[in-house]
């Protein structure tokens, strides 16, 4: 396969970046703030698992609410902001034109963050709903839809007004995520919050939504980032790129069918979990295509590549783990245990977040026009977050295994079971503390890099040339 000519001398900071600097840095920055908030909450909930009396007297932070707060801050605060920021940036760059509707992005971002903050307050005072990933109270949900639509406008304009007719895989994934999430959110709100369906249809709709958040929103956002950055930093054409569309369509068509596996053993007709198991096995095809396409990340040096590589591997491992855990025989051991929390940590932290970290490390220098402020903060974040993610996944997995065995064995009493789980849970708390400190380092580094007045003292060692129109000449 021929390699394209490299244009390493092309100016890397274009008018597209300078013009979108403020709004996109706002999105990425607010994402990082929420990441730290959710890190604090993750630490609290992890402590509560081995010390149940911790904060038990504080009704706003009992385990159920703290868990919902953590999840909401993580998904709607961190992943949504960072993912949209990166998706808009990629759409603009691949579209070849500066972003339009940037005021909408700023307004949407402010409304979105206000909505998430209001939602967290609502959860804390007890207005949360009972549906996973849709726990913010009913009254903030329309605001979220509105805010997301505002931010999405810019992405849709960047896509529809692109210079080249041809589309690259990153654009498919980013546009799919921008279009599908509002539809998913509105549909789920309608059938779960505004005109609730009754009985067992409720959990079916709720698991459909939760699976859709992964398969139709977060995974496409992450894949948009990976598909953009891998050829960008490796300089290689994506291997067997002509199969990429097969991976895209399997994710979109089959991905959201597998939500029913969480209802195995529940009061739903047998075909719903069975269909989910089958869908999960068909999804292996998607993961196979991703493996073939994005293996070009191997052997590339640098911070971005390290994060993307980790996220890429975690994404594939997540696919296989979900497939295995969806079978009824396995689910009998893992269902309702912390093993599911380990898989969630693998998917949302190990895969999606690590990919977003890589995207942020790549995008921020281009948006600011300057290199990151501190190399030691980067390396500190990199090693701490790696250690934290790996250890927390392993600890939760081991605790889940012990929990599953204990729950199935009638001879093991509850205190005995928790006794066996306490060591891995303590280790998980340590890992959450490590993750929190890692993300604080990233936030500090981001603030130092993004605020121009903090950079005046140093001899701005930018690697990039100033914005030119050079990139437009082709």
């Amino acid at each position, binding site marked *: 396969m021929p*390699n*394209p*000519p*490299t*244009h*390493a001398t*092309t100016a*890397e900071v274009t008018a597209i970046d300078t013009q979108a600097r403020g709004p996109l840095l706002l999105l990425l920055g607010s994402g990082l703030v929420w990441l730290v908030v959710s890190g604090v909450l993750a630490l609290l909930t992890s402590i509560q698992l081995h010390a149940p009396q911790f904060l038990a007297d504080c009704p706003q932070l009992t385990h159920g609410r703290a868990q919902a707060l953590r999840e909401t801050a993580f998904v709607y605060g961190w992943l949504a902001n960072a993912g949209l920021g990166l998706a808009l940036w990629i759409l603009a*760059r*691949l579209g*070849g034109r500066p972003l339009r509707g940037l005021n909408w992005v700023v307004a949407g971002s402010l409304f979105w963050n206000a909505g998430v903050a209001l939602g967290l307050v609502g959860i804390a005072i007890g207005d949360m709903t009972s549906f996973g990933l849709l726990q913010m109270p009913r009254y903030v949900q329309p605001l979220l839809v509105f805010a997301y639509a505002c931010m999405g406008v810019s992405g849709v304009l960047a896509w529809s007004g692109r210079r*080249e007719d*041809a589309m*690259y*895989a990153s654009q498919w994934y980013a546009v799919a995520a921008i279009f599908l999430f509002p539809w998913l959110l509105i549909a789920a709100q309608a059938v779960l919050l505004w005109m609730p369906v009754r009985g067992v249809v409720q959990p079916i709709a709720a698991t459909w939504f939760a699976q859709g958040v992964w398969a139709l929103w977060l995974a496409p956002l992450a894949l948009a980032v990976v598909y*953009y950055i891998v*050829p*960008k*930093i*490796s*300089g*290689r*054409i*994506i291997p*067997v*790129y*002509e*199969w990429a569309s097969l991976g895209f369509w399997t994710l979109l068509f089959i991905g959201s069918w597998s939500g029913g596996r969480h209802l195995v053993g529940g009061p*739903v*007709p*047998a*075909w719903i979990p*069975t*269909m989910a*198991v*089958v869908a999960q*096995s*068909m999804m292996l*095809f998607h993961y*196979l295509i991703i493996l073939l396409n994005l293996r070009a990340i191997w052997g590339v*040096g*640098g*911070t*971005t590549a390290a994060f993307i590589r980790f996220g890429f591997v975690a994404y594939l491992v997540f696919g296989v783990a979900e497939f295995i855990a969806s079978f*009824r025989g396995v689910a009998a051991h893992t269902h309702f245990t912390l093993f599911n929390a380990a898989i969630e940590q693998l998917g949302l932290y190990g895969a999606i977040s690590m990919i977003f970290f890589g995207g942020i*490390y790549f995008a921020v*220098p281009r948006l600011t026009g300057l*290199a*990151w*402020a*501190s*190399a030691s903060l*980067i*390396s500190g974040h990199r090693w701490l977050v790696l250690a934290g993610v790996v250890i927390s996944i392993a600890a939760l997995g081991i605790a889940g295994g012990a929990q599953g065995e204990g729950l199935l064995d009638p001879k093991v009493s509850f205190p005995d079971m928790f006794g066996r789980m306490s060591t891995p849970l303590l280790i998980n708390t340590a890992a959450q503390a490590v993750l929190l400190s890692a993300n604080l380092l990233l936030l500090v580094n981001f603030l130092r890099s993004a605020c121009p007045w903090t950079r005046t003292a140093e001899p701005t*060692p*930018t*690697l*990039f040339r100033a914005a030119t129109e050079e*990139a437009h000449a*082709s």
Partner: protein
Amino acid sequence: MSTPSQPDPRADTAAVSDETLMASHAKLLGQQPDEKGRYRLMPLNLLFIFSGMIFFGGTYLGRFSGYFSPSVFNEYSTGTAVVAAAPLDPVAVGKKLYAIPGGCITCHQPNGAGLPGAFPPLANSEWVTGSEERLIRIALHGLQGPIKVAGADYNSAMPGFGQGSGFNWSDDKIAAVLTYIRQEWGNKAGPIAVDKVTAVRTKEGARSAAWTAADLEKLP
């Protein structure tokens, strides 16, 4: 492509521009498969893998889907189990049939006492608690003309309720309503079996004319 040996961790350089990235990948997709010298096999291996997955999925669905029935909750169900209908209580069924407007209740009244001088009672009636043969025939085909019930004389007409009549009740229904009246209002006679009704109806064939008391008294 050319990764620096000592990359600055603070800013990863890009190896290709966005334009090159777009153009080189668009070229791949735009390439005609039968372009001379560039022929690329259909990804047969992918096709095999995907077919294998579909085969697995289809087999798994066939085995564990419970025939997509909304009422099958056990994935090991083979779908052949027939839900047994709960047996009906003939007295309860008969009570409902008795109360159908225009039916028994109109003449014989809710308390089974009839109307003195016009319609005979069912309560404490020797015709009801006595011969099953006669009672079944009355219900099937009707009755007209003079009749003596519980010591009083009556002369009116009752329609038939059996198959072919205006009511067209099945043997089940006839048996149920007769069983009901034979144990209600102080009556203490045994139930009427469905088989017995069927036997009588078969024996009488296509009879549609109402019975008279005189005819019935010839029967056992």
